[in-house]
C-alpha cells in the first residue's frame, strides 16, 4: 500500500468512525424529538466534519426547526470530537436570529443554574 493510498484509507476510516459516533448520538436525539412525533436523519458527514441532517415527521414542516436545531440537535452533536458544524435544510436563520436564540439559551441556562443553587 502506497503512502497516499494509506492516508486516504485512514481518512475514510476516520470519517466512518465519526459517522458511527454521530449516528449513535442521533439515536438519543431521536428519542427526544419523537415526543413531538418528529425526527431527524443523518444525510452525511463530510470529510471536514460537517454533519448534514434532514428533519422528518412533524419536525419537517415545523417553523420552529431552527429552535430545535439550536437548542437540542446542534448541542448534542457539536461536542463530538471531529464535528465542525451541523446543518439541516430549513434551519438556516439570520445572524441576528441565531444570536437571539443563543442569548435565550444562555439566559435559560443561567436561570436553571440559579434555581439549582437556590
Amino acid at each position, binding site marked *: 500500500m502506497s503512502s497516499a493510498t494509506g492516508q486516504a484509507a485512514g481518512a475514510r476510516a476516520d470519517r466512518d468512525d465519526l459517522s458511527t459516533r454521530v449516528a449513535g448520538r442521533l439515536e438519543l436525539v431521536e428519542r427526544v424529538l419523537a415526543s413531538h412525533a418528529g425526527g431527524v436523519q443523518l444525510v452525511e458527514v463530510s470529510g471536514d466534519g460537517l454533519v448534514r441532517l*434532514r428533519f422528518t415527521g412533524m419536525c*419537517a*414542516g415545523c*417553523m420552529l*426547526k*431552527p429552535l430545535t436545531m439550536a437548542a437540542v440537535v446542534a448541542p448534542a452533536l457539536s461536542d463530538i470530537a471531529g464535528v465542525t458544524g451541523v446543518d*439541516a*435544510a*430549513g*434551519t*438556516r*436563520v*439570520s*445572524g*441576528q*436570529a441565531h444570536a437571539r436564540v443563543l442569548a435565550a439559551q444562555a439566559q435559560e441556562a443561567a436561570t436553571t443554574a440559579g434555581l439549582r443553587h437556590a
Partner: protein
Amino acid sequence: MWTPRPHTAVVFRAESVLLDGIFIFDNVIHVYDMSDANLRADRPDARQAREQLLASGTRGRSGEYNAGLDYAKRWSIEEIYEMVFVQAGTDMAMAQVVPLFDWYNDYFAPVHAQHAMAAAYPDRVLFCGGADPIYRGLSDALEQIDHQVKDLGASSMKFYNGHLPRSWRCDDEQLAYPLYERCRTLGITVLQFHKGVPIGLQNVEDLRPNDLQAPARDFPDLSFVVHHLALPYFDELVSIAARFPNVYIALSGILNYCLIAPRRMQDILGRLLLEVGVDKLLWGSEAALLGSPAPYLDAFLKLEIPETMQSDYGYPQITREDRELILGKNFARLMNIDLDQKRTELAAAAP
C-alpha cells in the same frame, strides 16, 4: 396602467451579467407556438386566453432587447438560443413541453419544437416531454410518454392538470398514477407540474399544489418539481416542500420580479431559505415569454436580504453558494449531470 420604462441604451448580453463563473442551468425554457395558426378554431375563448398570457409576459418583461420582440408567433429554435444562451450567458437549459391543449391545436409549447431545440443543441439543452390524460385519454398519454422518452429522448415529463371545462387531480390513482408509474418504468425520475398561476380562466383551486402530497408519499423514488410557487398557494407549497424530501420548487418566472418588486422577492426567497432550504430551489426563466433571462439573472445576482428583514423575520442572507445552487447545481444534481465534466465539455466545444 403600465407605463413603459424610460428608454435606455442598455442591451443585456452575457458579458454584462455578473455571472462570475456560476454555472447557469435554466430549469425551464419554452419554444412557444403562440401563432394565430396554432389557436383552436373551435374554442371561442382561445384568442382571449392567448392574449391574457401575452399580457402577463408583457407586464413581466424588462430590457430593451425584450421590448422589441414580437411574441404572438411560432418561435424558432435559433431565436430561443440567441435569447437564452447568447444574450444571457446560460450554460444549459431544459426545453419543456406545456401540455396545454385547451386553446391550442398543438399545445402552446409543442412536443416537436422542444425536441427540435434539444436535438439542435444536444450539449446544452435537455428535452422535457409532456402528456395529459384527458386530452385524448389515458392510453394515448401513456403512448405519448413511451414515444417521447424512447424515441425523442425526453429526460423529464411535464404535466398541467388545470383545464376547461374540467381538470384532473394529480392524486387520482386511476388517471394520474399510471402516468407516474410509466415514467418510473422508463427511468424518468423527475416529474414537473405547473401549479398555481392559471393560464386562462380555469379554476385557480384546480392548480393548488395540495394534490401532489399523496403522489410524493406514494412515489418516494420520484422527484416532484412544482412550478411558479403555486401562486397564490405559496403557504401550502412551503409546507409541502419543507416536509416532503422529494418535492422541489422551480422559481419559474418568479425571479423576474426581482426587478419589479424586490422587497417581495426578498420576502419570498428569505422564507424559502429559512423554511424549505436552498437545496430545493431551481432557477427557471420561462424564456421566451418573459424575454431574455439576462436582466433577471443580473437582478438576482445583486439581490440581498436587508438587515431589517434578517432581524425581523430571521431570514438568512443569500450567499454565493446559495446562488450557485439555485442557478445550476441543484438541477444538475437532480438530473445526474456532473457539472465539472460538463464545463470541460462545453469549453472544449467552444469555437
